[in-house]
Every structure is written in C-alpha cells, then in structure tokens.
C-alpha cells in the first residue's frame, strides 16, 4: 500500500498515527510545502514572545518520521492531482503514485482588496513560522504596528508584539472582538484587557485608504504605522481537489469517514468543511483539535479501518495577556449567566447545553464540553450545581462509578 499525504502539519500527523494503528508496513510519503518538520502553528506567537524555545516549536520529536516509516519531502509543493491515474505531480518535477491520498493542505491567510495597500512597504500575514520571523525582523522597539483583524490570529499577534514594538493599533470591521465566539460582555472584557495592556482597539471600522505609512479609517480616524499585519481571516486551500474535479464548498467536501468525492482521496484539517454536530450544519472549523482528529479518522479509514468523525464542534481556548478565554459549541438558546470569579455564560436549548463562554473561571470546564458533546439531557444531572462549579458530584452515582471505577 502506498500512502501520499499532502501538507505536513497537524492533520497529517493525525493521519500518520491513524495509518500506523492498522498498517505498519505501507509506504508513507509526506509532501510539505514548508521546509520545517511539523511544528505547531499556534506556537508562532509564543515563539516571538520568547516563551517557547525553538526546539519546543516542533510538535513531534525528530524521530517521528523515521519511527513511523515516513519519507518526508519537505520544501516540496504538490501541484496537481490526477485522480484517474492516481498520481500527484510535485514541484520538483516528479510524479508520485498513490493508492490512498490525503489532502491536508490547511488554510491560507485571506487578504481582501484594500485601497492603497500596494503603497505599504512593510506588510505581513501571521500564519507560518516564516511569517513570524519576517515580522520580527521588520520591527523594532520604535515601530508602530497596525493589525487589521481582531480574530484569534490578530490577537495572538498583538500579544507577542507588545514587548517588541512601541505601539499597536488593532482595527476590525466587526463591532466585537472574536464575534463568532464571544457575546458583548465577554468581548468587552477582552477589549478592556487589551487596552490595559496598551493596545489601541478600534472596532466597527475598517481601512478606507492606505498611504505608505498611514491609514484613513471609515470612521475618519487616521492611524500611523511602520508595519501592517493583515489578519482578516483564512481560507481553506481547496484548489488541488477542486482542479481534480472533486466536490468543494467553502472547504473540501468530505463524508464522516473523511473521504472526498474523488475515489481514494481523503481530506482533513483546515481545508475541509465538517458537519458541526452542535451547530447542526456544515462549516469550516479550522481548529487544531478538528485537524488532528479528522486526520486520524482519515488515516484509520485509508488503512482499512473503520472510523467516523461525527462529533466535531467548535472549541477554543487561549490565554491572552494573562486572561483565559474559553468557548465551545454555539451561542444558541437561552443564555444563562452564572455567578463567577470571571465571566461564565452557558447556552441551553431543548434542555441540552449547546455552548459556553468563559473568561478566566475555566476550572474543570471540560465537564461542560462533555455535556455539549454527549448531548446530555440536563434533567439527568444536577445542573444547578454544575452551573456554579463543574464536578462529577452532579452526576448519578452509576455514571460516576463507570467513570471512576472503570476504563473510559
């Protein structure tokens, strides 16, 4: 059996582990455009901050490829897939045949057209290790940086630049920070924390026109900068599958087993659209846990096993300027705000927990996440107790017994 995996990142690692759970012999070729062994993308901001040493950027040990019998073609791009011949054409001119193919090409930063952007000399995206290094080299203690986009990537970028530059301004078209994940109150708490850390945050406005070192905003305000970071959003890398005739929506279309519409071609990670079991529809989740799990499910199925990826939904946890921000599921149904040392909002619909937003008070929050995942009927637990403080005490003795007295 010959496996070819395109994209050397988190979904790919999941797939290697999935394949090797069933097939110790098959040949695995990994084609990765970036020249590095697999590193953790979310760590690039911690790396610039000096909080993560270079060796700890790497998600797996050096021995990973060898131990798993993988040939890693790093610094090589897959240019096209021929789904009828079952081959992939690579940037080094070679054509590699596959029995099973995984497309795990992730996503790329999306840069919308903006007036005058071409006049800006120093502009960056913040997505890869090379992006992070280039950004670091182009700024200094006197720099003013304008970050476009108050999503997770823009926020993490602001956090790591804080001690490296003189001034940071963030601009977002949305009225809220992380609008897809946070309600007004939580967003306000995050904004306040940013401001207390010296970051200027301008919401509900966007750039009308760039000049070389300044931007005029739609609200009339003028912002000076030495460098711009574009963190508006990301788009799934779907073209390989699309050009080969595979079904593509906002992301590559896959079924529960992570099969694309092309025979023997699987896809996983940020490049696919998944069924979100809480949200109840298809969407691109573009999250680390979804990438790993989707990759693993693909790998298991590619190697003759049987796995389904039916339990995916949005989860996010990060720490920003010392503040913990944790969210899961979606903000639908009745919103219950509970007593908290930080902020805690739970969303309940049809007597099930659908989502939560927590600032700082995150202790044991995974118990909430499990209620969402399992679709637990809240009348079977002491939900009042859970709202105050998540714990196993709120469950029936038999449930507790099966958790603490058995294998899970």
């Amino acid at each position, binding site marked *: 059996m010959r496996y070819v995996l395109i994209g050397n990142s988190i979904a790919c690692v999941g797939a290697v582990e999935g394949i090797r759970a069933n097939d110790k012999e098959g040949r695995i070729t990994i084609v990765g455009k970036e020249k590095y062994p697999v590193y953790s993308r979310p760590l690039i901001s911690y790396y610039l901050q000096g909080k993560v040493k270079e060796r700890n950027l790497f998600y797996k040990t050096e021995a990973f490829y060898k131990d798993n019998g993988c040939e890693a073609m790093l610094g090589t791009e897959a240019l096209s897939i021929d789904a009828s011949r079952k081959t992939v054409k690579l940037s080094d001119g070679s054509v590699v045949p596959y029995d099973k193919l995984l497309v795990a090409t992730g996503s790329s930063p999306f840069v919308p057209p903006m007036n005058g952007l071409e006049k800006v000399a120093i502009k960056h995206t913040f997505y890869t290790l090379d992006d992070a290094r280039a950004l670091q080299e182009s700024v200094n203690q006197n720099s003013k940086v304008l970050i476009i986009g108050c999503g997770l990537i823009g926020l993490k970028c602001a956090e790591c630049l804080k001690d490296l530059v003189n001034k940071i301004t963030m601009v977002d078209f949305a009225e809220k920070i992380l609008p897809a994940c946070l309600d007004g109150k939580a967003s306000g708490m995050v904004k306040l924390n940013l401001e207390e850390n010296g970051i200027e945050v301008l919401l509900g406005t966007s750039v009308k026109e760039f000049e070389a070192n300044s931007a005029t905003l739609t609200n009339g305000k003028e912002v000076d900068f030495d460098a711009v970071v574009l963190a508006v959003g990301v788009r799934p890398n779907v073209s390989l599958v699309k050009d080969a005739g595979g079904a593509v929506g906002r992301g590559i279309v896959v079924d529960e087993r992570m099969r694309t519409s092309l025979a023997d071609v699987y896809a996983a990670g940020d490049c696919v659209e998944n069924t979100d079991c809480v949200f109840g529809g298809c969407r691109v989740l573009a999250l680390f846990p979804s990438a790993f799990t989707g990759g693993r499910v693909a790998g298991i199925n590619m190697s003759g096993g049987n796995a389904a990826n039916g339990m995916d939904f949005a989860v996010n946890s990060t720490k920003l300027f010392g503040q913990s921000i944790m969210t899961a599921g979606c903000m639908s149904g009745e919103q219950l705000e509970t007593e908290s040392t930080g902020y805690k909002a739970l969303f309940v619909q049809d007597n099930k927990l659908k989502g939560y937003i927590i600032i700082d008070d995150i*202790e044991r929050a*995974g118990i909430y996440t*499990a209620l969402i*995942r399992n679709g637990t009927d809240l009348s079977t637990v002491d939900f009042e107790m859970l709202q105050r403080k998540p*714990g*196993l005490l709120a469950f029936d003795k038999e449930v*507790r017994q099966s958790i603490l007295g058995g294998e899970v």
Partner: protein
Amino acid sequence: MKRVYVKEEWCLGCHLCEYNCAFANSNERDMVSALKGKPWVSAVQIEESADVCFAVACRHCKEPLCVTACITGALTKAEDGSVRIDRDKCVGCHSCIMMCPYGAVVMDGNHVANKCQLCLTNKFGQPKCVEGCPNGAIVYEER
C-alpha cells in the same frame, strides 16, 4: 494497564491523597518541606458534598481528548497507555482543561497544566495517593 480506581463508599474526604500527590511530585525529601507554608497543587482532587466524597484524577482514557487538543505536543499517550505531560512544553493555553470530560487536568501556580501521571515519572514509581490512602478508597490495579 493499571489505573487508579475509586471506591467512593470508603472515602472519608481526609484529603491525604492530595497531600501525598503534591509531595510525590515536588522533588522534596519529606511532606513538610514540600507543603508547609508553600502554595501547592495536587493532580488528584477530592469532591465532596454533605453525604458523598471521592477522589478524581486522570482516567488515562483509551482515546484521550486532551491529547488531541494539545497545541504544543506536551500531552502524549505513552506506550504503556498512560497519558503523560511534558511541562516544559506546555504554554498554558488550557485546551486540555477545555477537553477533559472529567475535569481531571488542573492548573499549576505557574499556569501550566498539571495532571496525574500515576507517579510513573517521579521517584516513587507508583501512585503515592493510593499508598497513603488509609481506607483503600483508591486502588491501583488492572481492571
């Protein structure tokens, strides 16, 4: 694999397991130098109400969700089935806390994650909480 199992009917809520856990993972010579006058964290936690109490620690799940969500690779499932943490790699993003269905990952004073490793990585080699439990309310065995 051998895991720590809980018999809640035998638990008195004396919290000795917590003291033993914090001590065993402290690298100190004795319990007093490990705990007295210092902030300490235990990877096993007692939950208690008026009539029930029991200890909760990592279940070393067959398919650990914490591992799939760990953005640094600090959490791994070892060959022996135990779920291990490399605290040098942890950046304190709390993704593991968000994912653990049992609330068994805790935060340390320095904000990195902490969890039960069955004392396999310290000098004791087997769970100190179990050894110190006066009632056998937690046991370390194959089930």
